[in-house]
């Protein structure tokens, strides 16, 4: 196993556990919201906001994980008809597109969003946490996606067999 492959697998393992834990917390949080209203007869104000923010984190981290696994929804009816060499070129094109979007929108746009909301001290309605922390998932996940794209591109370029396509 090469070093980059080793790191790639480690990062994926961490992402997997992150997704599992945050999903479990999400279930417990909303169950608590329902049961506290009926069994304790009172509502807590933070459950809804916690759930919404967790969903954002789970989705956008999950998107990076899908990039690692190449499991995003895509339409391959034209791709399937291509020759091997065109498939190789197309695969690189796809990863470059993903790379650029992650860099320009998620990292640069996202970082500016985080900067603006932190600099201007916007707080969330009930948890009173800076909104910038919620948005930070975007540049963070964008950075992971960039790394995965480079990893996939180098895989296509170095691997002369077609298992990567």
């Amino acid at each position: 196993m090469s070093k980059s492959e080793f790191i790639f697998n480690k990062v994926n393992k961490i992402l997997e556990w992150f997704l599992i834990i945050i999903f479990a917390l999400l279930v417990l949080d909303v169950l608590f919201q329902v049961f506290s209203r009926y069994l304790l007869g009172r509502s807590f104000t933070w459950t809804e906001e916690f759930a919404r923010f967790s969903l954002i984190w789970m989705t956008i981290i999950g998107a990076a994980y899908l990039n690692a696994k190449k499991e995003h929804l895509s339409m391959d009816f034209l791709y399937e008809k291509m020759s091997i060499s065109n498939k190789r070129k197309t695969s690189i094109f796809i990863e470059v597109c993903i790379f650029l979007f992650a860099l320009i929108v998620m990292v640069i746009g996202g970082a500016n969003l985080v900067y603006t909301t932190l600099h201007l001290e916007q707080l969330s309605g009930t948890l009173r946490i800076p909104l910038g922390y919620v948005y930070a998932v975007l540049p963070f996940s964008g950075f992971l996606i960039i790394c995965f794209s480079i990893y996939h591109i180098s895989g296509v370029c170095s691997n002369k067999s077609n298992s990567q396509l």
Partner: protein
Amino acid sequence: EKIEGPEVLYLGHTLPQTHPVHKGMLEFQKALEKKSSGSLKVKIFPDGQLGSERELLELLQIGSVAATKVSAATLSNFVPEYNVMGIPYLFRNKEHQFSVLEGSIGKSILEKGSKFWLRGLCYYDAGSRSFYTSKKAIRTPQDLKGLKIRVQNNQMAINMVNTMGGDATPLAYGELYTAIQQGVVDGAENNPPSFVSSNHYEISKYYTLDEHSSVPDVLLIGTKYWDKLSVEQRVWVQEAADESAQAQKKFWRESVEESMKVAKDWGVEIIIPEKSLFAEKSKSVVEKFVEKYPEMANIVNDIKNN
């Protein structure tokens, strides 16, 4: 390169086009185009087309939308001074409220926003919020006991209802109609035009006019956009906003009358309670607030002594 033609000011908000505050913004649009002889145009995006109130404020800071109208309650998460407006029974009556808002206190709060890239232009009347319930009538604060009342997801609103004896339940506005109807909550609180335009009057038996809070709406312009305007253009924008604020108060009055008539005709029982009982019960909210934000004690005092 720059596109020829008039400068366009994008104004996004979340209200429907029938709402009296939207009509106020139409006045702003008319006045500004007239003052600038058509060189400054306003394009209004109603119905939350460009996002929720919180998101619109961010878009002003980001600089892709020029102006917005939000409730001072939402604004308080960006500019802390607006928290003051949420204090229950802060204003003695409407005259007191607008003499404060249009006087030096109100103007200085509008100014405070510039530090957060959100310059306030003027206040719009958003009336007073009161309780409505589907099963049990609220006549005194004691009646609130055990009732699940939906509130905005905002600490002051939650504290207020809990201190008065109710059970504050923050819930998304979009889920509220069915939540009242199905009994997930026992009631909610809002001003008459929203009570009617949300159709909540159809599923509420009682409307208790306790008028616990009078949080105004605020018209804002992003400093990113404002800074690009010439001195002359800034004067036009400010004057147009001030004119629209005066016109809007009339639209609001008419809308309250119409809404109350709709609710009454539907068969909603309108209850006029002894407001001082509710005010008395909610006093500790102010104390807690001043404890938490000592720097705002002065503003609260200035308003009360105005």
